[in-house]
């Protein structure tokens, strides 16, 4: 069997073809190396296309007071000071260059009056900072990167006669395993989705850029590809995941009709006057204003309504509380039996604004729901609830190189890497995260390959990987992968969702372990030709590992912070702020241990007002004033 396997030899293998993967590939190719890009779907379809708002970079085009230090502060605040400071620093410093570079490759951002790249306001950013193209910024980014790859291939074709001599895209291919020899990366193994034929890649360096894990949850804004492949491949290869308990739930995802379940209803719907009500018709958000926000948010409808016309003399409507607060409130209403039969609440903008105004201010929202679901938001309420949107946790990396800790030759960038966003990501920071760390990963992987040289893949490693791919067909009468996926999603939704408690998390850990036993017995019908059931059986294995890591990290972290809310520990803890939860895999189960969070160095510590830091840090930390 093994001698029939298709083999390829590259310097660097990039797994994932979204913004981070493509940026890494460009960098590695420009460093003179041969790169293979693997995508699970067609080239140019990655989930990056879904990003709407923009890419945060302190170019200062709209407000010249903006600079990397302000951006750094905003990112740390957003992450509630659990971010790896060095990643946030590099990101804030390098984002403007990464955006300008896109323009040199043909990107066309919206402009200011002076003809510069326009920048828009966004939650958590002190100044207008998001470079954007209407509400399709992610598409612009992915298409620009895709076209940059094509441009490089055209150059290669002119020089070598072969467009794919230095960069080749392997579309619709799944990687099932990272191979190692002598503790170092030696390649990867996988199969073509089209025909199930197995493929071996020999490469001394791998960049993981596989994105998120949303499909582990029932309601998610992620596509089928968000199955945590990179997270799981890294774990199985001996790398660590950091802080997997932190998941961002967007408070207003559509829960009904099914055609749009999980799709985001942008925050601007609430900003324009959208009101949240329960099934009793009660505008419930007034009940959920936390003490710290009481002076900023209206506690009665009359004042909240006045805010839309007079923002100076009235407090904001409570629908505009931070994402985590709104998510928790919706969740509480539904749990108290005041939600819709589909587990959501109502969001209505039609009563406040005329159809004409809605279509003008929220054109894509109106258009999207009308065309996709027949819901006319100018006439009726939307049914919304929290949807799993983004994972802050990810592969533990060295900030400057994006090198995965513990596995020489392995790198990770973008959503599948952890640390950058701490416990909560600011909108707009992910697109520049992809570019900044995609580039750094490509650069560092290239330097590593040049110094480390090639490695050999052993026959036994190949055989083991091949047997694993064959297994689902060799069993009979076992479990249906679709059914197991639904069961997993029920467990995560009900027990590891937005509000967590010890008893439920313990229950989830037991149930996930039971599921893990059952997936060892998955059977797949049909043959290897483009067989979604077969594909799902591998994705499912990855998702189970992610769910286990998330549940086990969540039960340990006895505090509420950003994308992790514990009903039994509702406050932030200064002790837990100093700790990262590190997941590792011993071959049978995920183990979670604690590790100190790197301490802010003095020059970054000094960028903050000490009074602000008091909310997050212990008196001892404040007295030290940073690490040196």
């Amino acid at each position, binding site marked *: 069997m093994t001698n029939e396997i298709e083999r390829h030899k590259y310097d660097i293998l990039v797994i994932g073809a979204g913004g981070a993967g493509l940026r890494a590939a460009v960098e590695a190719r420009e460093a003179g190396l041969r790169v293979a890009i693997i995508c699970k*779907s*067609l*080239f*140019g*379809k990655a989930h990056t*296309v*879904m990003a709407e708002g923009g890419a945060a970079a302190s*170019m200062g085009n709209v407000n010249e007071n903006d600079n990397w230090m302000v951006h750094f502060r905003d990112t740390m605040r957003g992450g509630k000071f659990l971010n790896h400071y060095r990643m946030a620093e590099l990101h804030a410093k390098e984002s*403007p*260059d990464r955006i*300008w570079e896109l*323009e*040199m490759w*043909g990107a*066309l*951002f*919206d*402009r200011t009056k002076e*003809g510069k790249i*326009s920048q828009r306001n966004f939650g958590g950013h002190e100044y207008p900072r998001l470079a954007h*193209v*209407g509400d*399709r910024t992610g*598409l612009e980014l992915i*298409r620009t990167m895709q076209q940059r790859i*094509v*441009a490089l*291939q*055209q150059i290669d*074709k002119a020089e070598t006669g072969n*467009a794919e001599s230095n960069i080749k895209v392997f579309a619709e291919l799944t990687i099932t395993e990272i191979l190692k020899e002598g503790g170092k990366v030696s390649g990867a193994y996988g199969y073509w989705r*089209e025909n199930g034929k197995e493929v071996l890649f020999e490469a001394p360096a791998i960049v993981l850029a596989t994105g998120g894990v949303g499909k582990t949850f029932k309601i998610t804004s992620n*596509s*089928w*590809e968000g199955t945590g492949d990179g997270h799981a491949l890294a774990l199985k290869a001996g790398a660590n995941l950091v802080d997997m308990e932190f998941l961002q739930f967007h408070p207003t995802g559509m829960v*009904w*009709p*099914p*055609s*749009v379940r999980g*799709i985001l209803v942008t925050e601007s719907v609430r900003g324009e006057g959208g009101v949240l009500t329960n099934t009793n018709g009660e505008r419930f958000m007034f009940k959920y204003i936390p003490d710290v926000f009481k002076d900023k948010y209206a506690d009665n409808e009359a004042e909240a309504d006045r805010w839309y016309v007079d923002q100076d003399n009235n407090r904001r409507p409570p629908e505009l509380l931070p994402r985590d607060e709104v998510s928790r409130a919706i969740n509480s209403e539904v749990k108290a039996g005041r939600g819709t039969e589909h587990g959501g609440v109502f969001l209505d903008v039609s009563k406040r604004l005329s159809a004409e105004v809605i279509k003008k201010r929220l054109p894509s929202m109106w258009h999207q729901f009308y*065309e*996709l*679901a*027949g*819901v006319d938001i100018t006439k009726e309420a939307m049914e919304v609830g929290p949807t799993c949107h983004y994972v802050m946790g990810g592969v533990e990396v060295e900030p400057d190189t994006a090198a995965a800790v513990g596995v020489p030759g392995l790198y990770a960038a973008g959503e599948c890497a952890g640390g950058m966003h701490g416990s909560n990501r600011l909108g707009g920071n992910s697109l520049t995260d992809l570019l900044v760390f995609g580039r750094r990963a490509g650069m560092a992987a290239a330097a590593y390959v040049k110094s480390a040289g090639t490695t050999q893949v052993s026959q036994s490693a190949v055989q083991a990987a091949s047997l694993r791919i064959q297994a689902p067909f060799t069993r009979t009468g076992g479990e*249906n*992968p*679709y*059914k197991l996926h*639904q069961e997993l999603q029920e467990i995560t939704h009900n027990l590891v969702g937005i509000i967590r408690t010890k008893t439920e998390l313990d229950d989830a850990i037991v149930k996930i372990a039971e599921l893990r036993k059952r997936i060892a017995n998955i059977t*797949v*019908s*049909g*043959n290897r*030709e*483009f*067989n*979604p*059931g077969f594909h799902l059986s591998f994705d499912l294995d990855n998702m189970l590992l992610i769910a286990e890591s998330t549940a086990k990290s969540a039960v340990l972290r006895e505090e509420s912070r950003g994308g992790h809310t514990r009903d039994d520990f509702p406050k932030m803890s200064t002790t837990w702020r100093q700790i990262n939860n590190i997941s590792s895999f011993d071959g049978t189960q995920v183990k979670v241990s604690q590790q100190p969070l790197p301490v802010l160095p003095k020059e970054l510590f000094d960028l903050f007002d000490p009074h602000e830091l008091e909310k997050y840090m212990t008196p001892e930390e404040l007295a030290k004033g940073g690490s040196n």
Partner: protein
Amino acid sequence: MARKLNLRIWRGNKESGALQNVIVEANEGEVVLDVIHRVQAEQLNDLAVRWNCKAGKCGSCSMEINGKPRLACMTQVSSFPEGEEITITPLRAFPVIKDLVTDVSFNYKKAMEIPSFQPPVGMKPGEPRMAQVDVERSQEFRKCIECFLCQDTCHVIRDHEENKSSFAGPRFFIRIAELDMHPLDILRNRKKKAQEEHGLGMCNITKCCTEVCPEHIRITDNAIIPMKERVVDEKYDPLRWLGSKIRKREGIL
């Protein structure tokens, strides 16, 4: 309000295939892709279909529904009368791989043949200044989600395999138009090449491509026709060509 749907789904591979009748439940508000997923999970586990975002933004779930090229994620079940059979087939212009999945590599080959964006020599990152009104022309074409429905419906290649080698198709005409109208692009002769190398002349502006575009890009009116007109102008008037290039460079403030 669940209803029973009678689907006829094409199943097969490059060798052979046939329509298979499937009865499946559809819930209120569902789109065709939801129903296909239910068939996949409950009846035909190995039914092949491409999809990604399920929000009309990635252009993966292109197929033909009752003979019309459409995105399955943007086709509501309620748009079909109760009791009507819905026939779902793969894109006809491209070779079948399996069931509803086709080999769309033709499009990636054509993408490779279009000369890339070329900024002015010596331009530095952060320097470009462009007016919003000037970028909007190209931005319309950059909305393209590469679903390739326009390619599928275009009769120049839909039933004429022999034209494929000399015809890039509507998707790539808007790519050329986008670059041609790009305020920073300095490559000459894009329109001429569109005519001579990419088959622009074979298009006889029936606007089928515009009709199927889920992004409502005015492919024919805003890209194809202006290029056809100007390529004719320039053919007979070299001064006009020169003038257009100078104006374009002035766009770089």
